[in-house]
């Protein structure tokens, strides 16, 4: 492989990995703080993408649609937490799995009912629709670079919030010891609602910003969910730092495997996961 193309592939891998991080961070955050495994996390990715499609068409502005879609996702998150998840804190993981599987069914039905089953696409916003020439033949879409910058920005933002704010302190406390948070005199119910809504919104945001570079089809949520699981398991459940490292790892490995090991490329990330688990059953960064 030529050096320049190797670098392009590396860029592809990092860019894919960063997007994976955006989805996985929400899942791992919710698990870390609340101990809830939300299988409907991927559905929120799908809902985010469809919402931005809908509002972009309605308002003629991608950016306005992003804001509206994010707000709706957050409201959905609050509703789900307040009315459903709230009953599950004292129950075991099995009930959580089941309830969130039920949610997947409902979201899929809603998607099919509202938007139909034809593949849909969202236009790249005018501002970012150009490409940059990087080798004699390959151009790189500016929007994809923007995505990477955005994901890195969000990662830095999360890092800042977690390490420097009161909310972050509670999140850290929640990750290490849930009972302790209650003793801190924090209203745990509110904290959980906020964290769940944020987690869900992160997933929806990932769907929203990737809408212009993916096609909107039924079942897109489940596919993301499974990749997301791999990331979270490799990184260590509940560890946001782990999710970041693992997402990049998965993105890069997947990208190179699809070129270098075409026969077994879809298995590669699972093999990677199995290998890591043999040596580190709790993932790379257990929290």
């Amino acid at each position, binding site marked *: 492989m030529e050096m320049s193309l190797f670098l392009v592939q590396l860029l592809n891998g990092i860019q894919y990995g960063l997007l994976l991080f955006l989805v996985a961070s929400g899942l791992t955050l919710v*698990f870390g703080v609340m101990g809830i*495994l939300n299988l409907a996390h991927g559905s929120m990715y799908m809902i985010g993408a469809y919402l931005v499609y809908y509002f972009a068409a309605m308002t003629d502005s991608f950016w306005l649609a992003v804001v509206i879609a994010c707000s709706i996702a957050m409201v959905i998150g609050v509703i789900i937490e307040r009315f*459903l998840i709230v*009953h*599950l804190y004292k129950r075991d*993981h*099995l*009930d959580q*799995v*089941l*309830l969130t*599987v*039920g*949610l*997947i*069914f*409902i*979201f*899929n*039905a*809603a998607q*099919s*009912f509202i938007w139909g089953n034809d593949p849909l696409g969202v236009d790249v916003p005018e501002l970012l629709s150009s490409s940059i020439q990087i080798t004699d033949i390959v151009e790189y879409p500016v929007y994809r670079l923007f995505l990477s910058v955005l994901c890195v920005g969000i990662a830095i933002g999360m890092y800042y919030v977690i390490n420097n704010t009161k909310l972050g302190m509670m999140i850290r406390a929640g990750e290490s010891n849930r009972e302790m948070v209650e003793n801190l005199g924090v209203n745990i119910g509110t904290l959980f609602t906020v964290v769940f809504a944020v987690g869900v919104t992160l997933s929806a945001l990932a769907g929203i910003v990737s809408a212009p570079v993916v096609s909107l089809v039924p079942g897109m949520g*489940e596919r993301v969910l*499974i990749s997301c*699981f*791999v990331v*979270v*398991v490799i990184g260590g*459940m509940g560890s946001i730092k782990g999710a970041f490292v693992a997402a990049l790892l998965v993105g890069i490995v997947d990208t190179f495997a699809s070129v270098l090991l075409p*026969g*077994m490329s*879809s*298995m590669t990330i*699972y*093999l990677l*996961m*199995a290998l890591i*688990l*043999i040596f580190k*059953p*709790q*993932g790379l960064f257990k929290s």
Partner: protein
Amino acid sequence: MSVFSSKAEKVFIFAFFFIALGIPLFFNENTFYVNKISTMLILSIFVMSLDYLVGRTGLITLGHAMFYGLGGYLFAIMIPEYEVVNFWLYTFYVMAASGVIALIVGFIVLRTSGIYMIMITLALAQMTFYFFADSTEYGGLDGLFIYLKPETSIFGLNFLDLDNENHFYYLCLLSLFNCYVFCKVSLHSRFGRVIDAIKENPERATALGYNIFHFRLVSYVLSSSLAAYAGYLFSLQYGFVNPTMMSWEVSASALVMAILGGLGTIFGAILGVFVYESLHYGIEHMTQYWMFWMGSLIILMVLLLKSGIAGLIEQLVGGKRK
């Protein structure tokens, strides 16, 4: 002491197998229903094996369909293309081969527990799914066909014709019965005593000198072999296998059925399958958006029906489990 955990179970089991014996006579004109119920019996074996693992051993898996699919695939791969093979012999081969695979897989997944195990089993099942979906030699996404059904003679005696719907139905019923008896007997045995202990309190069981990893592994292998047997039967019923047999939706709906029926009750698996499948069949014929109603039903079930239908029946009939 009785093998049955409750009066409800006893009543249900007797009633179920009594009615089931007569089904082909009742539907003698209509092979569709016989086929449909055969499929449900097969599913019951699968869900029961899952209950053994999740409800009794305390190991939650979201990748059990992997073994269901493997059962079918192992058979489809092992048989020579133009030769009629013996059913019983291949039953043994399929279960043994899947047992060996389960041993290896179990060795990896059982190093983890709880939420980790849920996700790892899921990921490994996806990996197997992709292995078959991307393969050229195993038919890819289109799956494989089994052209010739096995013959079932033992010592020259041939009393089952797998091409006959009714015969196949009774084979499934017998298999389910054996599976139920095996689960009950083994859970009531010395082995079962340890399994129960490990589920309730793994730390204490370890401190009492049990290597819980070994017991979990044995349970995992048993459960997986049973699941593979169910998949093997399924592949025989219509003569083909397909990677979607091991998709995560299959694992998830099996879990839903196990919980709907009543986790840890073993007989609840049968209840769960029959209720879920009937609902699915019914709702699907009424509305295009059946997924919405199924989803709502699942959520209601989680919130309201904590010990499944079996628990409900036990409350109604009385004779609570000890």
